[in-house]
């Protein structure tokens, strides 16, 4: 069910939510967090809501979408409530602020009365994020701030900002996209021969913050020289090679879909390793709300990697 509340305010929205709960049975029980999605008014809203709804099946939440409308319009707040079939396992509140209400501070003021009592708050910027999320008006309300460097207009610049201004509680989907790669590499080192890794090479597209970040992670974990090179593939990250005395452990993904794991003395093994979708990443992000220290360390590690120029063939 979708209820529109044009030219409204937060307390009207709250009242309407209670009313809907009473007339439609128990809708809002068992919500574990409030997810605040900050975006510009436009087409991207529906994609973000869909991702939030699909994540809400694992983490029942209240989703508040803060859509910044035209700044030149007269100040006004339009609200929309979606519950039941239109909201997955969550309840979605879309707040559109116009004029002065499109600015961050008044925006946070609209969101504040609608936060669930006692439950953690997560802020998510699906596209452009503030330069310092932890100092943003919405970011200050949240325990966890999720950004996505890859979806912004200039991924490398956004990633540089993340590195420069990281505080505990920030994460970026750049990191979430790496989980499966990291799991495969860690699993490969679980089993003998238990030799030290002496050097590592990471290759991927030139504009691929995830590739940089993986190199940074390896740099902090392995304490050896890590080289980050461009690759001939155009599908994000495409190769990781860990050199050990008995031979290299190599994970390659030339086509962005299927990866091959090769280890000395063992047959090559293939595995599906598709690039992850945003809903999938968001679900993983919401699974843990404590600061991700490993991510923080990996960001620092990016400063230690050396850059190669020759593209690596995969």
């Amino acid at each position, binding site marked *: 069910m979708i209820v529109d509340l044009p030219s409204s305010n937060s307390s009207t929205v709250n009242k309407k939510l209670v009313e809907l709960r009473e007339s439609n049975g128990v809708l809002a029980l068992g919500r574990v967090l409030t997810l605040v999605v900050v975006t510009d008014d436009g087409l991207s809203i529906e994609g973000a809501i869909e991702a939030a709804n699909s994540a809400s099946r694992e983490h029942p939440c209240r989703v508040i979408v803060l859509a910044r409308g035209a700044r030149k319009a007269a100040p006004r707040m339009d609200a929309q409530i979606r519950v039941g079939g239109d909201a997955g396992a969550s309840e979605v509140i879309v707040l559109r602020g116009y004029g002065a209400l499109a600015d961050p501070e008044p925006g946070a003021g609209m969101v504040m009365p609608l936060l669930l009592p006692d439950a953690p708050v997560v802020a998510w910027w699906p596209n452009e994020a503030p330069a310092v999320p932890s100092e943003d008006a919405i970011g200050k309300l949240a325990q966890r701030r999720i950004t996505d460097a890859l979806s912004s207009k200039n991924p490398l610049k956004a990633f540089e900002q993340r590195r420069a201004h990281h505080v505990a509680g920030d994460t970026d989907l750049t990191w979430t996209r790496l989980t499966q790669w990291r799991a495969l590499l860690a699993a490969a080192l679980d089993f003998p021969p238990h030799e030290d890794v002496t050097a590592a090479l990471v290759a991927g597209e030139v504009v691929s913050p995830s590739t940089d970040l993986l190199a940074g992670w390896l740099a902090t974990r392995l304490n050896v020289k890590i080289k980050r090179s461009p690759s001939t593939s155009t599908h994000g990250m495409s190769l990781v090679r860990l050199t050990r005395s008995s031979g290299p452990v190599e994970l390659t993904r030339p086509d962005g879909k299927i990866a091959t794991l090769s280890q000395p003395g063992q047959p090559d*093994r293939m595995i*599906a390793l598709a690039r992850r979708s945003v809903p999938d990443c968001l679900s993983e992000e919401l699974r843990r709300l404590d600061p991700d220290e490993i991510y923080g360390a990996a960001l620092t590690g990016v400063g230690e990697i050396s850059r190669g120029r020759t593209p690596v063939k995969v």
Partner: protein
Amino acid sequence: MTSGTKISSGSAGYVNPLRDPRDKRLPRIAGPCGLVIFGVTGDLSRKKLMPAIYDLANRGLLPPGFALTGFARRDWSTDDFGQIVYEAVRQHARTPFRQEVWDRLAEGFRFVEGSFDDDDAFDRLESTVRDLDRVRGTGGNHAFYLSIPPSAFPVVCKQLARSGLSAQDGEQWRRVVIEKPFGHDLQSARELNAIVDDVFPEDSVFRIDHYLGKETVQNVLAMRFANQLFEPIWNSHYVDHVQITMAEDIGLGGRAGYYDGIGAARDVIQNHLLQLLAFTAMEEPTSFSSDELRSEKIKVLNATKLVGPIDETTARGQYTGGWQGGQLVRGLKEEEGFDPNSRTETFAAITCEVETRRWAGVPFYLRTGKRLGRRVTEIAVIFKRAPHLPFDQTMTEELGQNAFVVRVQPDEGVTMRFGSKVPGSQMEVRDVTMDFGYGTAFTEASPEAYERLILDVLLGEPSLFPVNEEVERSWEILDPVIEHWQAAEEGPAPYPAGSWGPESAEKMLARTGRTWRRP
């Protein structure tokens, strides 16, 4: 309930530099390995095992190069087998179908045709497995899933030993997975354990009780030991009694071969219900390592005793035909394949007591049955009444006992029941419920029990599998009841399909002034 950072193989003292306990995102992927399923044509294998394997692959938790080998007496090629798995996955898998995942998984399929007494077939299986090590890099690590009747265990175990399939050397592992029933009494359970233990060391034997793979059951431990709210009242000072129920609304048509002569007590109480009792009543383990968890479970099972006299503290019944929920159903005796004079019980209830200081004097009522009112499994902890009420009788007429109910399935969650004032000018207190819907909100993305358990087998993580000792101890608790019932002249009391069991079930609680909850 995680394994910590133990790695099943490898040189001592090795620490994987890429792992860090703070890195909670990293899932543990099973090491190189393969799974061999005996009895691939069965229902369990098609509806649960194959879909679970695909779901694991889809979630990226299986190792690259994972191999799945089917063994059955069918004239199938590997492609035919692949087709069977494909259909099972398309029909029953939980996660969406992804062609690229399927393609990689299907490369590791093999099929070996043969019967259990055929030496040649097992030799072929052995060479298939060895070939997988070479081609797929399974590294000599293989699990054997015996999805077959227990009567076939001896011959299959013997064959596994003879062909060298069970031999583990060095860092390679071989594990065997077995399903209930683990025998039909203490004696037979011991014999079965002896047969399996003869071939596989106890730490390589994984007994599946799929209830323990359920999130809600593991949540009982989280609920009890992670919260301050419940533990202080979780004892005989406050708890009046506990009811553990597993009810099914289906009958036994088509399952005569397995069920006739076995009955509800052996089928369900011995394993599922006593395990649920152990989770509910156990003391806090010092850690969640499998050893600690098991030793607490064994302790509580050792303290669990039957309450007598058995005639009065137990009940058994058999469903009769009639209209159930708008459908005409047959009674057990008319079901296909059952003896018209069958004395097999389809409803069983027993009374236990846990003889520890915490639980002294608190009865645990366990009941299970087929063709009952609805399908439900729950643990209900019923509290004592408040000792003194500052209200007069008329004010609290509608106030029952407080209850804490863990709904194991379906609609997973927790319900709390307590009294609340009825709105109005008068002081009147009535029962209300507070509901935590774990089910409606979480389960869509939470794994099936079999996914969790198969992954644990491949990882060598044993906490969720009952050990030998627990199985034997459970039979020790149950055996006197079954012997008593068998010696009795009368058979089980009839109860109409769709009801909540025979009258004797009500009587066994009524003798102490209690009643069953209607779940």
